[in-house]
């Protein structure tokens, strides 16, 4: 089932690669890096197509986490002793790796959080609660994950502000003219996802940011699905906030990043109060630490964040241009295979897509699809993907979603397609 070396054509729009340059991707070699993939489920080889929910962890990341726990564990930023120094060095080293990975100007602009949800809530509390007031408006898009809707709704409710929604077309593409019309002097923040977890759409973030900045409005980008599949350059995007979940890019759960422009982070309120985020504390008044500590109260997920650093090292060791092109080709192949099956409908047909392929089968509920696929060893997500407004927009209760990574193979896509056929047979 493991494919040999493949030659795929480069995709210029993905990762800024050169157009049409041939790239080689040795998927069999890459699969060896991920021990979890070499197992059987229900007697069948595991076909892991739930990468948009959480990606798998390469051995080098597992080893780095183990080494930390075996040799370096201690609390950071506190002790003068040897182990605390080592833990601090590794933790801060991971931050510098993140900085380079997303091309932030300074590592203090990279705040460690547990994941995107916590990251967006950090900005809601730190920025939103300080700068949004009654009558103001916050713009989100119609395809957002609940994590980029609910915090803003909570804020609007608290402040008497209004949530505005950028609509999308039937393909799952945001309508930029409608977006432009929503921007006005009351707009305080625009919050959009880079890549849709439910539809796979790649949003034109640079364009979205440019239009907001014309009105002086900052933009928060939910990069949960962007960071694993695209080359991220926060300076080029000119995003004011870019949020990352480590566990969706080959690191352990509990790791993640809020990138924020230093001048914004400086002006914001802290998020959680506690140890490590202070300069001085008296019962009369507390003054806060500088960046990034101001936003990192308490003992963080040290091992997980060091793991994120190791995952970045791992990605840097790959030919990422080839990886992106290969992922693109896999998605195209899967789209072609599933579209060819009668009764299958793809949800999300944007021109620019990556990672996720949502589909529905006529007269079969996605949960039943998920169960039958699981019996074939195939892991997909079935449900609303924490994007109930997206389901409502397409007038469906849920979808089944196959989501790909560079370690998936065309043979796995074939297995998916035959299993989908089987679902149709069971329900015929």
């Amino acid at each position, binding site marked *: 089932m493991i494919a040999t070396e493949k030659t795929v054509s480069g995709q210029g729009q993905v990762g800024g690669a050169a157009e049409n340059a041939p790239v080689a991707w040795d998927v069999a070699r890459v699969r060896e890096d991920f021990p979890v993939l070499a197992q059987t489920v229900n007697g069948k080889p595991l076909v892991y197509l739930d990468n948009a929910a959480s990606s798998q962890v390469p051995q080098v990341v597992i080893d780095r986490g183990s080494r930390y726990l075996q040799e370096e564990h201690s609390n950071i930023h506190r002790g003068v002793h040897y182990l605390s120094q080592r833990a601090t060095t590794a933790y801060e080293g991971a931050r510098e790796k993140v900085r380079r990975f997303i091309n932030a100007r300074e590592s203090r602009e990279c705040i460690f959080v547990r994941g995107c949800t916590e990251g967006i809530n950090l900005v809601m509390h730190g920025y939103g609660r300080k700068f949004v007031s009654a009558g103001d408006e916050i713009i989100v898009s119609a395809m957002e994950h609940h994590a980029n809707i609910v915090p803003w709704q909570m804020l609007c409710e608290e402040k008497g502000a209004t949530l505005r929604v950028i609509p999308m077309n039937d393909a799952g593409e945001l309508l930029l003219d409608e977006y432009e019309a929503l921007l006005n002097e009351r707009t305080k923040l625009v919050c959009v996802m880079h890549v849709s977890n439910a539809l796979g759409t790649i949003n034109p973030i640079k364009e979205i940011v440019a239009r907001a900045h014309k009105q002086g409005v900052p933009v928060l980008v939910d990069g949960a699905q962007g960071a694993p599949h695209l080359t991220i350059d926060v300076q080029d995007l000119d995003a004011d906030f870019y949020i990352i979940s480590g566990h969706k890019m080959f690191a352990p759960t509990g790791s993640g990043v809020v990138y924020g422009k230093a001048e914004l982070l400086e002006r914001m309120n802290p998020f959680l109060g506690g140890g490590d985020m202070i300069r001085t504390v008296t019962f009369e008044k507390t003054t806060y630490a500088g960046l990034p500590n101001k936003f990192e109260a308490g003992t963080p997920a040290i091992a997980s964040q060091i793991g994120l650093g190791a995952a970045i090292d791992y990605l840097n060791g790959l030919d990422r241009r080839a990886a992106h092109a290969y992922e693109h080709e896999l998605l195209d192949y899967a789209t072609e295979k599933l579209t060819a099956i009668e009764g299958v409908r793809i949800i999300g047909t944007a021109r620019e897509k990556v990672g996720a392929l949502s589909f529905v089968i006529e*007269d*079969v*509920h*996605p*949960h*039943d699809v998920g*169960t*039958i696929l699981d*019996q074939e060893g195939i892991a997909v997500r*079935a*449900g*609303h993907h924490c994007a*109930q407004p997206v*389901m409502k927009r397409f007038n469906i*209760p*849920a979808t089944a979603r196959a989501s790909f990574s560079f370690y998936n193979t065309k043979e796995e896509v074939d297995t998916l397609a035959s299993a989908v056929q089987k679902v149709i047979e*069971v*329900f015929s």
Partner: protein
Amino acid sequence: MSELSELYQQVILDHNKKPRNFKKLETANRHADGFNPLCGDQLTVYMQFEDDRIADVSFEGSGCAISKASASMMTQSVKGKTRAEVETLFNEFHRMVTGELDQETTPNNLGRLTIFAGVREFPARVKCASLSWHTLNAALAGEDAATTENLGPDITSEQVSA
């Protein structure tokens, strides 16, 4: 595939395609909405409850094959039964789908509902089978809503030991 064919038996597929008592009950004097926030399944159970007995019962809603078939067969099983009889049935059904009751060795009142025994092999689907029952229970108790999140865990013994 044996566990799978055990789950998706013809009777279940048939009830999924043609759910029985699938309508709003005009004579209902009690009803409750059931919701599984995990998957978005939702249904409404309508009940005409008289003299401590379910005189008539129906349901509406959307969900997977398991939840629809379970609701459909539930309405057939509980029609005409007293509150105590329904409570016993719910208890037995719940214990069967979570693997606590072996319907083949333990005497029970489940009858045709034993067709759902296969659900116990699919822990992720236990809530699908029990949503309609939780909702029926809420309607019986005079509540107007049930969700699978605050009705106690539908956890199988296998999950606890994992």
